């Protein structure tokens, strides 16, 4: 009898462990002991590695470990200048991309470009921003400035490349 009770208790505990692990209960929190290092975006040991491609080292820069992309640098480093309005720019090509992202993690990641103003897009075409674990992908830009009025708030374009 005593062994039976013990077995029942053990089974219950095992089932509880299984339920907790399944994430079926969304309010469960986990405490984990972690050890490891934090790497800058451009460090080849980082989980997601950003790298400037040939000729674009001034475009893809890193500050405090975080990559930023200044597209004006692809054309000219004179901050007094900008992209012509009512124009179409190709910045980089498939054969000569601006930057490269390597996914060193063990899960698939997806990049998205969200900008404050329409017209700036990242290539390859939207929907092809997924990078499988252990692979890398090249990116370049097109910039259609149609309808963007110089001097207006929309003329200063900021955005984010989201990695998820």
């Amino acid at each position, binding site marked *: 009898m005593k062994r039976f009770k013990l077995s029942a208790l053990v089974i219950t505990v095992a089932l509880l*462990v299984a339920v907790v*692990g399944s994430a079926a209960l969304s309010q469960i929190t986990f405490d984990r002991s972690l050890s490891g290092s934090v790497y800058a975006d451009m460090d080849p040991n980082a989980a997601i590695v950003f790298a400037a491609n040939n000729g674009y080292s001034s475009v893809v820069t890193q500050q405090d470990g975080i990559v930023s992309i200044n597209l004006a640098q692809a054309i000219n480093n004179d901050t007094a200048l900008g992209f012509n309005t009512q124009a179409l720019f190709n910045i980089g090509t498939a054969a000569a991309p601006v930057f490269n992202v390597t996914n060193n993690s063990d899960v698939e990641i997806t990049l998205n470009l969200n900008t404050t103003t329409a017209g700036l897009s990242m290539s390859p075409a939207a929907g092809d921003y997924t990078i499988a674990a252990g692979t890398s992908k090249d990116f370049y830009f097109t910039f259609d400035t149609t309808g963007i009025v110089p001097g207006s708030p*929309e003329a200063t374009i900021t955005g984010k490349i989201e990695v998820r």
Partner: protein
Amino acid sequence: MRMRISILLITLGLALSFFSLAKSGALSAVAANRPVSARVADDESAFFQLKGFNNTDNQISNNSTYKNIGSIKNNTRETLEVSITVRPVSLTTVKNWSASLKIGSTEVSFSKNDTAEKQFDLTVSSGSSLPVDVIFKTAGESITLSYQFKAMSASNTTVIHLADTSSTPRRQTLR
């Protein structure tokens, strides 16, 4: 026997929890936001700099020597192969006119009833500027020249298209 069953169940439970944890999202989320920036400028302070093309009205009739009516400048880091297409417009009332248009050292000529577009093919090195000059003959009436620009670096990594639009005219009137 019961002890073996208990151990088996515990092992099974732990295995289930281990595998389900990997799918739970608790350890799999990766998220980062990285900034991108750019700025749009008018043609006179842009990477492909145009001066004198903003629907400029030029009073130059019947000059015998070239008169400067503008310039183009390559403010990019690379040498650009530039194609400039010029098309006379607003000709309905103009009966007799001729124009010799020169950009850099390349020249094209237009004459009365000439509505066909003509093209300049130029190489503009980084940082260099080319003057746009004209000799214009008319019997007192004006014409307007509409421009379209296409500039491309040798590696095709920089490609620029500039059109003549109502909101951003790239045209010059000669009178």
